[in-house]
């Protein structure tokens, strides 16, 4: 088990495996995202209260969900890197950050665009919106902190601490709609006993989430390969690899 793990975490091996995996993430991601878009825009029925504006759900909820998911992935990778001193884990955290930041931006922007016709305002300083904005600042702060060090090892350690401390914000985002009074509607999907959303409206949502997960898998594979090459600039395997 440990032997296998060390082999996987070795840069040359990871570089090869990621290169093989990436297309298996990328192509299904493209297919599922297109399918979910068509389903959400064309096939799903309009909402009886929100009309066609509810279709924003299919880009808003999955991107918001991804913004939190990627943060947790980043924090776990940073923790693994910090505790077991695995450089590849730090590299993975660094590769995840810009992708997570872009999903957070999308969640905020599409939420704002949805809020205007439904709530009559682009933005309110309530718990859900504010904590999601803090998530964006955590991503940006993480990236800024990394780039402020010349020494990659110090950058890894300092930014890992920030990523781990910041993970407290993720449950705050999730439960903010229950803990505080807010304009944002409570969860309607993650109530497994009985989701309060029609099943034919749910399929495109799940397809979009799976599609974006695969998209993230593709993007982090590509970025991580770049990150590995950058960190291993003087290693001998680089010459053997080509």
């Amino acid at each position, binding site marked *: 088990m440990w032997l296998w793990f060390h082999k996987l975490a070795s840069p040359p091996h990871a570089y090869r495996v990621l290169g093989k995996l990436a297309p298996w993430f990328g192509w299904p991601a493209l297919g599922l*995202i297109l399918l979910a*878009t068509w389903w959400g*825009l*064309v096939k799903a029925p*309009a909402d009886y209260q929100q*009309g*066609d*504006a509810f*279709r*924003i759900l299919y*880009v*808003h909820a999955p*991107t918001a969900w991804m913004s939190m998911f990627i943060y947790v992935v980043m924090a776990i990778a940073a923790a693994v890197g910090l505790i077991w001193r695995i450089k590849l884990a730090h590299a993975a955290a660094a590769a995840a950050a*810009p*992708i997570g930041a*872009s999903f957070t*931006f*999308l969640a905020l*922007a*599409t939420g704002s*665009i*949805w809020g*205007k*016709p439904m709530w009559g305002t682009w933005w309110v300083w309530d718990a859900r919106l504010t904590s999601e904005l803090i998530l964006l600042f955590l991503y940006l702060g993480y990236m800024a902190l990394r780039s402020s060090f010349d020494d990659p090892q110090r950058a890894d350690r300092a930014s890992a601490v920030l990523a781990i401390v910041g993970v407290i914000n993720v449950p705050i985002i999730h439960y903010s709609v229950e803990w505080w009074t807010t304009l944002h509607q409570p969860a309607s999907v993650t109530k497994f006993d009985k989701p309060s959303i029609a099943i034919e409206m749910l399929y495109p949502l799940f397809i979009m989430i799976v599609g974006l997960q695969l*998209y993230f898998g*593709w*993007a*982090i594979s*590509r*970025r991580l*390969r*770049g*990150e590995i*090459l*950058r960190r291993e*600039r003087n290693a001998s395997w*680089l*010459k053997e690899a*080509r």
Partner: protein
Amino acid sequence: MDLNEFFRMGGYAGYVWTSYGLTALVLLLNWLAARRCEAREQESARRRSSTD
């Protein structure tokens, strides 16, 4: 299906199409950025290995 009706989105066209357009744009930029990140490091690794 009536195409005009589809593009009108029940009067929410501006909101719906902006959301989807923005999402498509950011996913596309992310895709390009990830590819560039990998390609740039591959190029610089190639250049280093050819000089020594």
